[in-house]
């Protein structure tokens, strides 16, 4: 008789303005909070123990304080769940919200990305899934529809699975250009829509595919991650399966910016919330090894849009650190100065509260980290003082 029973994790006590981290691992989701100074982090989890969580999002639009998560059980499948109280209660609909129509011939394997829509469209939210497809909800997540424009795209039949499966792992909602969406699939490459997802076109000009005879095809690239600049419409940074690129025209063309990095192979990329010229990557040694070069864990930061990159090493191990940071393993918050975070396959979570200059080990011993998302708490009701605090408050009054 199995005797283990996991205690439910204690929910976090969160206040408006707190920094929030969602850390998805191969064995569940962990939540962290800190005051805006981000000096001390409290954590809770694992939620959904035993399930991998590749997708998570904090959605504070429309007065919400909702955390979405995409637990995926090897046995029972993937689903979308949410909490409106930072983990005290989770909603898991009996019928999974995201599911392929029967006539599609496909079955959901995993949810790789949860992306809230524009701020002025608070009921729209997207999911990128495996097999590569985009789902959208227009009613705040109650119902979801397969994006048929992309699903029926003639290119899709020729997309091939990468090491992680045939997954649509990136969904970017351009904040200042209504109707513009960019998605990326491994493999398949980047695709852009300018009509809110009705039609799509490949967006890979200049991005190479080293694993194909034609190294510059229209599509079929193995894009690992794209991040956009919130501060400059149309600016994108792309970490490819070999190749590091920037676009200043919303993906119409891409420029190689692997200037001074130890490798242009890697998975993750993050952008600064206010400075369009600042981005962060973690280069890895080759697709054969996929670990940090020379056993040094280094974040590379550019302050000039990729014209040059500097190694950020203070606080990071520079010996015997053969680490891997996967495509959703990095996040940047919007606080001042911006916080940068990344998680490793060895279960270490690092954070910087000074835009990458210095780093701290926030947690270790976690299961392999596959997803890190950063946000700021909003719409949290101010806690009413109770007990001793209340008595002191009343006495003082």
């Amino acid at each position, binding site marked *: 008789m*199995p005797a283990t029973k996991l205690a439910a994790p204690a929910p976090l006590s969160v206040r408006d303005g707190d920094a929030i981290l969602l850390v998805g691992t*191969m064995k569940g989701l962990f939540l962290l909070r800190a005051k805006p100074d981000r000096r001390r982090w409290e954590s809770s989890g694992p939620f959904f123990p*035993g399930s991998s969580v590749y997708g998570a999002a904090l959605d504070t639009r429309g007065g919400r304080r909702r955390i979405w998560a995409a637990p995926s*059980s*090897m*046995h*029972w*499948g993937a689903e979308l769940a949410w909490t409106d109280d930072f983990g005290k209660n989770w909603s*898991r*609909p*009996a*019928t*999974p919200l995201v*599911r*392929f*129509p*029967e006539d*599609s*011939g*496909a*079955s*959901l394997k995993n949810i790789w990305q949860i992306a809230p829509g524009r701020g002025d469209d608070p009921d729209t939210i997207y999911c990128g899934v495996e097999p590569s497809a985009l789902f959208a909800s227009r009613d705040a997540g109650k119902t979801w529809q397969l994006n048929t424009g992309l699903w029926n795209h003639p290119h899709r039949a020729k997309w091939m699975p990468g090491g992680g499966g045939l997954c649509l792992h990136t969904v970017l909602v351009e904040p200042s250009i209504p109707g513009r969406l960019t998605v990326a699939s491994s493999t398949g490459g980047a695709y852009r829509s300018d009509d809110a997802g009705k039609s799509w076109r490949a967006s890979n000009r200049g991005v190479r595919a080293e694993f194909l005879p034609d190294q510059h095809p229209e599509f079929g690239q193995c894009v690992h991650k794209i991040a956009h600049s919130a501060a400059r419409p149309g600016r994108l940074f792309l970490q490819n399966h070999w190749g590091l690129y920037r676009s200043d025209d919303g993906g119409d063309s891409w420029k190689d910016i692997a200037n001074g990095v130890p490798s242009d192979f890697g998975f993750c990329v993050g952008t600064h919330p206010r400075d369009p010229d600042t981005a962060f990557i973690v280069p890895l040694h080759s697709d054969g090894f996929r670990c940090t070069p020379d056993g040094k864990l280094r974040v590379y930061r550019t302050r000039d849009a990729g014209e040059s990159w500097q190694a950020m090493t203070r606080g990071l191990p520079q010996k015997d650190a053969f680490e891997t940071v996967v495509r959703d393993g990095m996040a940047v918050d919007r606080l001042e100065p911006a916080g940068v975070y990344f998680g490793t396959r060895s279960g270490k979570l690092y954070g910087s509260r000074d835009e990458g200059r210095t780093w701290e080990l926030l947690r270790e011993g976690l299961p392999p980290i596959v997803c890190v998302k950063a946000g700021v708490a909003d719409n949290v009701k101010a806690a009413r003082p109770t007990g001793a605090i209340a008595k002191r408050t009343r006495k003082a009054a």
Partner: protein
Amino acid sequence: MPMRFLIPGPLQPFSGGRSSIAIDTSPSTVAEALAALAALYPGLRERVVTEQGEVRPHVNVFVAEVNIRDARGLETRLPEGCEIAILPNVSGG
């Protein structure tokens, strides 16, 4: 005697906490039994079979002691009053 589903712990959040569910409609196949189960607890069938109606690759369904993969799959016939056990495979990592 009605046939009965045995529900593993991870699925009991979708069965109202019940580990055993009786089906009174006398289904003749596993597929019919799962349809009857879905009418009672829709979340259970969804986690046993995919959108395409196939048993998930890491789930085993036993009729008595026979894995339906070794029989006729979802068309496996049900003896009267049998038990259907839904069990996770030993896969993990």
